């Protein structure tokens, strides 16, 4: 009997080990706090609220010593601040890595290949219906410094055709301490982009390019 149990465990052991999941988290932050939708933030001379934050993380790959160890099983991942479960990306197996490479946004091939389900479903509010293309990064809110109607700003960053290709590649070297935790430091964007000047971005344009050029700076390993 004992030997049977042993054999059973021996057989099942590697299976369960093989199925151990690996989770990484992309946590949106405002300064030192986790982002809270519609919370009032005092930031320098500005009073800010974020009404909506969504962002595509796509083509996620894990590297160790510069060689690829794993390609994420999901083609595109939509982070949505109204649902913190979207901050997690889980892989079916366990492995070690010291670098993440991914895109902020949806690549041009996907943009021209018709309709998808799941996170790329055009009903997620991240697709422009009047001019085909995904919104790669969306940040809406109010700022006391914003001259728009009711102080509202709309940063809808998308566009896949040159010269307005807004997809940005990120590679993050990770140190050993917290390799599975990434911060998306949203306050950084307000340091880089003057919301009193750029506040209405809702199509592929020069302004969208200006913002997209700063997006890599938001992604940081947890210090």
């Amino acid at each position, binding site marked *: 009997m004992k030997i049977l149990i042993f054999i059973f465990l021996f057989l099942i052991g590697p299976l369960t080990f093989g199925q151990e999941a690996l989770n990484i988290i992309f946590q949106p932050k405002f300064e030192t706090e986790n982002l809270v939708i519609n919370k009032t933030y005092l930031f320098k001379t500005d009073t800010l609220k974020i009404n909506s934050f969504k962002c595509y993380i796509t083509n996620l790959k894990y590297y160790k010593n510069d060689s690829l160890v794993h390609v994420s099983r999901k083609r595109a991942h939509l982070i949505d601040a109204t649902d913190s479960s979207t901050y997690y990306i889980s892989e079916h197996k366990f492995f070690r890595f010291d670098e993440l490479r991914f895109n902020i946004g949806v690549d041009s091939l996907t943009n*021209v290949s*018709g*309709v998808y389900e799941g996170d790329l*479903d055009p009903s997620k509010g991240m697709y422009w219906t*009047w001019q*085909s293309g995904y919104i790669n990064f969306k940040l809406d809110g109010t700022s006391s410094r914003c001259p728009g109607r009711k102080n509202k700003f709309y940063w809808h960053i998308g566009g896949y055709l040159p010269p*307005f290709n807004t997809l940005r590649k990120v590679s993050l070297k990770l140190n050993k301490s917290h390799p599975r935790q990434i911060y998306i430091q949203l306050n950084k964007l307000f340091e880089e982009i003057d919301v009193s000047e750029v506040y209405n971005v809702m199509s592929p344009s020069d302004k969208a390019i200006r913002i997209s050029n700063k997006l890599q700076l938001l992604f940081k390993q947890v210090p």
Partner: protein
Amino acid sequence: MKKTKLLFTLSIFALLSFDIIKNTYFFNPPQYFPQPTYDFQKNPLDSNKIELGRLLFYDPLLSANNSVSCASCHSPFNAFAHTDHDLSHGIFDSIGNRNAPALFNLAWQKSFMWDGAVNHLDMQALAPITHPSEMGSTINDVIEKLNASEEYKTLFFIAFQDSIINTSKILKSLSQFQLTLVSASAKYDQVMLGKDVFSDQEKNGHQLFKKNCAICHTEPLFSNFKFETNALPVDPSLNDLGRYSITQNPEDKNKFKVPSLRNLSYTYPYMHDGRFATLKEAIDHYTSNIENSDRLSPALKLPIKLTSNEKVDLIAFLLTLNDKEFVFNKKHQFKKISIETKE
């Protein structure tokens, strides 16, 4: 071992050919048509999805107040264009800023709308559904309404073996129906197939057409599907700059997607803003009004000179592109589907 391998490859072959048979049964263009652009492998045609798409196309449920369907602006009897208005009319009697184009041979188009704003047939329907002056709805509202209908739930299940109604299934069904709108049985096509002959007048018109028009309105689809300008002066009340609004490239100012010239008798008025009510006006534009703009296609740099007899011949040729069989095909018209649901 070898035997199983053989069996395996054979069965794969059988499966594949089954697929091809299924698709070509509903989509069977003539040999002289080019390869279609649409990737049928990602959305293989089958009768259940086509019929579901047809039902959706004619259903005003897709609009905010259940008043406007796709067919409100794209009527089967006008080769799926709209003839009453120069500019399209939508929900709450709002007026759009462009003429609703005819819908046929969509499988060959690389981009959609007059300015190519839409890059894939599957994505096209999102534009009218959500446009405030067309159907004024949202895709989530449409999904909710479809989910509330037992009939649609059953039809989606029959079509997809899955009753979850989502964006992809709605859009793919609409595409399937629209892909079956192939216009390839005009007199011109009969002549191509050697089953008919042009009259002398039509023959002469064909020569004039090849010389003056075919570079943009390329046979046999009668469009090169590129963005060109035929030098229409900009209507200041619309200020529609066409392709430029998508690319913001000054080279693209006043460029519009070259429309097909099939079925012209059914698709009046003409041009992106429906400015010409008759074919004669459209042709007169080419012979007398071409503005010399530096963005003008080289094809129109030299003035097109046609005598009034030649114009008559050209029109006679253009009329051989009318496809009555397509326009009156019952398979494309509204049909009430009744399904038996078990009590």
